[in-house]
């Protein structure tokens, strides 16, 4: 249990990576790294498909990256009707490490650009759900 707290609305409650949500509550955004072969994963994985190890550690994600692409949704799927418009994007930290998240509402739509420098931070919604979002660098 525990993973139901992730995101605006979670579709999974049980995962071996549920500690991710506890870390968010502590203000940390972390991925997993294979202790045996060193591959880093974000989003986190419990199992390494490269060397078949289940021996994982957590590592802190880089704070700054570039916004590789983004979109602003003006309609929403069931369960997210209160949210539009909201912007989502992909942040590229280099070395193959990327992250998908919402972009913070405080950034004006016209300011969001492909290639802009951005940062990431944990976020807690009014209903107690925990997530992370893209902010200005």
């Amino acid at each position, binding site marked *: 249990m525990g*993973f139901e707290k*992730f*995101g*605006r*609305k*979670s*579709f*999974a409650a049980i*995962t071996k990576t549920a500690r991710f949500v506890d870390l968010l509550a502590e203000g940390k955004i972390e991925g997993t790294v294979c202790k045996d072969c060193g591959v880093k994963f*974000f*989003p986190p994985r419990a199992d390494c498909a490269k060397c078949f190890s289940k021996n994982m550690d957590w590592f802190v994600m880089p704070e700054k990256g570039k916004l*590789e*692409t*983004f*979109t*602003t*949704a*003006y*309609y*929403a*799927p*069931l*369960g*997210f*009707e209160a*949210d539009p418009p*909201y912007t*989502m*994007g*992909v942040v590229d930290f280099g070395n193959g490490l*990327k*992250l*998908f*998240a*919402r972009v913070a509402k405080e950034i004006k739509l016209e300011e969001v650009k*492909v*290639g802009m420098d951005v940062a990431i931070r944990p976020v807690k919604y009014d209903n107690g759900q925990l*997530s992370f979002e893209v902010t200005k660098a």
Partner: protein
Amino acid sequence: MKEVAVIGVGQTSFVRGYEGSIRELAFDAFREAMQDAGITQKDVDASVFCSAPEYDKQRSPAGVLAEYLGLIPQPTLYVETVCSSSSSGLKVAYGLIKSGLHDVIVVLGFQKMSEISSAESQERMGRGSDIQWEAPFGTMMPAYYALYAQAYMAKHGLTHDDLMNVRIKSSTYGVINDRAVYRKPIKPGDFKQGDPEAKMAGPVAWPLRVGDCCANADGSSCIILANAEKAKTLSKKPVWVLGIGAASEAVNMAARPDFTRGLSVGYTAAGQAYKMAGITAKDVKVAEVHDCFTIAEIMAYEGLGFAPPGEGKQLIREKATYKEGKIPVNVDGGLLSKGHPIGATGGSQIRTIVLQLRGETGPMQVAGEPDIGLVHNIGGVGLYGNVTIFGRD
């Protein structure tokens, strides 16, 4: 390589709100394909049913539909790769025939999307992606394809007018395709920003607008495949499966290598299919590509090798993909005009290409008696991709 042939094709009109259940919907395409092939159920050895789950309530639909179509006690099974389900079904059937297990197989794709609301449908489609790490942000198909559009437009100079012109091409053929759900003409003024009368201009997931997105629909499609021996006895105009390519890609956007290069599965599947068929992109005379969104058609041009990476816009600017152009694409209106009843879409694309190669598409017919046609069918946001190449005698 003439070992497996299409001997019959059928498709319902794609509509909003089909007045019947899924078994009745499936029957309509099946009936047309069986009559087209001129065979009865006794000639069929097996069936493959294809759809995306959770639009209707029927679990394990293959047995239920096989019974309604009169295809029991022959073996049946269910194949699912979301939007590419029925071209995956064709691949499975091809393998079953080529292996010698069966001689004649019915591949039936269906989807009745109108049983749920549009918002529910967006949620279902969103859950066709990564439910653990992405759906919690409120993702949906237009938003995913918009991520590709945004990066692509920023790098390659693709404009909103280019995307609009993909939809205008589509509507040119939607108007003359009596099986399409959207049959009204579309003009540039329909995309005018700020004009409340401009019905295609509203943002859905920026930079994609209403006119950039295909519509949900109800529909079914049916393809009947046979081995060479049966094809020669049963069919006057067999259309041969010359090449099949299929690929998969990481589900999470964080694992996608390059948003400016389009969907990797398109490139991979095309390479395999061309190699198996022993042809190149230049040999293709008519193509159906997966234009669930306008940007998807531009990316498909490049994945299939019709244009170099980043240059897909030139084909639409030069009208090269119109019926009279050097490589006609989606001259039946594509998903944008026909509508996209998920499980039926691949079979509908295959039907169009088979009819093109048989010279039977009426006002949509490409001139010059095309001998090689291609179907490009994508599942999810390039999670799955199938490219299938067809040729005639």
